[in-house]
């Protein structure tokens, strides 16, 4: 079966000016060959530490950034460029809903303008469409005349979701869309996303550093470390049998629901993407590292049926 959305060997390099002003430009390799597939109606979770490239991946996935190399496929075909009419393919729920809304336009204008520009609704029907979407995401349509700063954080997140959905996308990228909300609001928004998925058959790429959230919403989970996917499996499988030492450490580092303290914690910070370690990028922090790790980078390969992992452990 062809996946709805696919990333093939995506690389994303940023050039930075030299630190002392003169000299050769530095190249920051934010994504170093990422492969992902999202099936129709599927929720793929993506976890990783800050700075590992999650947000860059989100922006590449929706097309806000052009990858330096690699392919974005939509139903097996190259992603159509510059389509400005008709339903959108992919949309994004931004990390900071406050920054993702224009402070000088009413939220109603912002929810309706995409659908209007794409010819999905006539000018006369715009207000009705805005009201419909506001109701659907659990907002009072009377708020349409308000400006973003008059709304609470949870309401703003709903506005951002409504704005994205009003252009009828089939694929939604949530980049930490719920991270800034308090827990009860976060739960409401997660349930809303689940309901919308069931109603509209949406697919999600759900990006978070919060393992509990990802476990709750995702069918499959990919773990990212320093610009690469290091493990990928069905959610239950990944949480029950983490193969990669990084995933194991991440799971161990998250506090249990019973209030128990995390058993093992990751030591040190992730290495700088400007100067990544040779071989396996995780080896300086890995408890199981052995002589092969600094020398050769382990490819992402099937460790069990449907379970991909990039680690030398247990390989011939």
């Amino acid at each position, binding site marked *: 079966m062809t996946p709805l959305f696919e990333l093939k060997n995506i690389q994303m390099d940023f050039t930075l000016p030299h630190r002392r002003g003169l000299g050769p430009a530095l190249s920051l390799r934010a994504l170093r060959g990422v492969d992902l597939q999202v099936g129709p109606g599927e929720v793929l979770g993506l976890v990783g530490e800050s700075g590992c490239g999650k947000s860059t991946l989100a*922006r590449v996935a*929706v*097309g*806000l950034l052009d990858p330096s190399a690699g392919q974005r496929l939509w139903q097996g075909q190259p992603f159509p460029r510059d*389509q*400005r*009419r008709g339903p*959108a393919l992919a*949309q*994004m729920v*931004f*990390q*900071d809903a406050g*920054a*993702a*809304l*224009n*402070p*000088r*336009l009413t939220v109603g204008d912002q929810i309706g*303008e*995409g659908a209007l*520009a*794409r010819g999905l609704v006539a000018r006369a029907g715009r207000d009705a469409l805005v009201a419909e979407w506001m109701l659907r995401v659990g907002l009072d349509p009377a708020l349409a*005349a*308000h400006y973003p*700063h*008059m709304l609470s954080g949870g309401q703003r997140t709903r506005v*951002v979701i409504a*704005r994205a959905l009003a*252009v009828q996308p089939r694929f939604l990228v949530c980049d930490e869309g719920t991270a800034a909300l308090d827990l009860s609001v976060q739960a409401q928004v997660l349930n809303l996303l689940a309901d919308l998925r069931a109603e509209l058959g949406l697919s999600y790429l759900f990006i978070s550093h919060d393992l509990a959230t990802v476990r709750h919403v995702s069918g499959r989970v990919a773990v990212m470390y320093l610009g690469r996917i290091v493990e990928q499996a069905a959610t239950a499988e990944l949480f029950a049998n983490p193969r990669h030492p990084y995933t194991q450490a991440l799971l161990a580092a998250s506090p249990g629901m019973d209030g128990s303290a995390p058993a093992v914690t990751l030591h040190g910070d992730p290495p700088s993407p400007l100067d990544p370690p040779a071989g396996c990028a995780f080896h300086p922090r890995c408890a199981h590292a052995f002589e092969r790790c600094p020398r050769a980078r382990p490819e992402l390969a099937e460790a069990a049926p449907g379970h991909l992992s990039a680690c030398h452990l247990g390989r011939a």
Partner: protein
Amino acid sequence: MSMFARAHPGRTRLIAALARYAENRVAAVALTLFLLLALAAFAAPWIAPQNPYDLAQLDILDARLPPGSAAAAGELTYRLGTDAQGRDMLSAMLYGLRISLTVGFAATAGALALGLVVGLASALAGGSIDAFIMRVADLQLAFPAILIALILLAALGPGPGKIVLALIAAQWAYYARAVRGVALVEREKDYIAAVRLLGLAPPRILFVHLLPNCLPALIVVATLQVGAAIALEATLSFLGVGLPVTQPSLGLLIANGFQYLLSGKYWISVFPGLLLLTLILAINLVAERLRVLINPRLDGI
């Protein structure tokens, strides 16, 4: 209180903004003073005792009369005295204020418009075009504004239109730089990414989303520059390259009285000078308050 008031759109919003502005008493007085001066300048033809441009109304016998003198012919009392041509100083000042304000605002509007276009183009084009435009602006800013205006006016000759042109040439670079800076910051914000992702047309993104969010910072620069433009015009007129003698602005009035200053006929220079000082001070105080309101973190600095 302001948070609550801001929740109402339209007129209430304006009143709330004014109330917030007036929380600083000095700024409230400055704004009132500025509005009064602007009103007086606007109403000059109706409230001035004399039309200083109409040579038939001037009487050379009334030249250099001290404040409070009566005219040799007729019932006119020269409350602020007369100048060397026998012009009523109060009338000349009202008309001069009119010219100074018109020139100041016209030059600011022109420079703002030019700077806005150049700055936005620079920010959006990026790369070598951006670098080129900004080096031109740097070069421009490296010259004193007065020098640029002097050279231009020497070439163009005097006249209100020409002095506006000279002021625009001297000031556009401030706006271009400010616009570019703000636009570069706003452009990277997520709301711009979001509307790009929605598939809006670039002109709509520019004019509906980017530009309105760049304006507040510019209003502050523009208000400050109105004061600077008026002062620059007064300086140029004082130096004799600005406006023609028949249409004296405040600067020219000061220059006219300059030679009599030491002979005790202080009123010809001092009154227009005080008026100019008050005007520029009021404008700068208003600008300072706007700057604080738009960036609240500056309050108290």
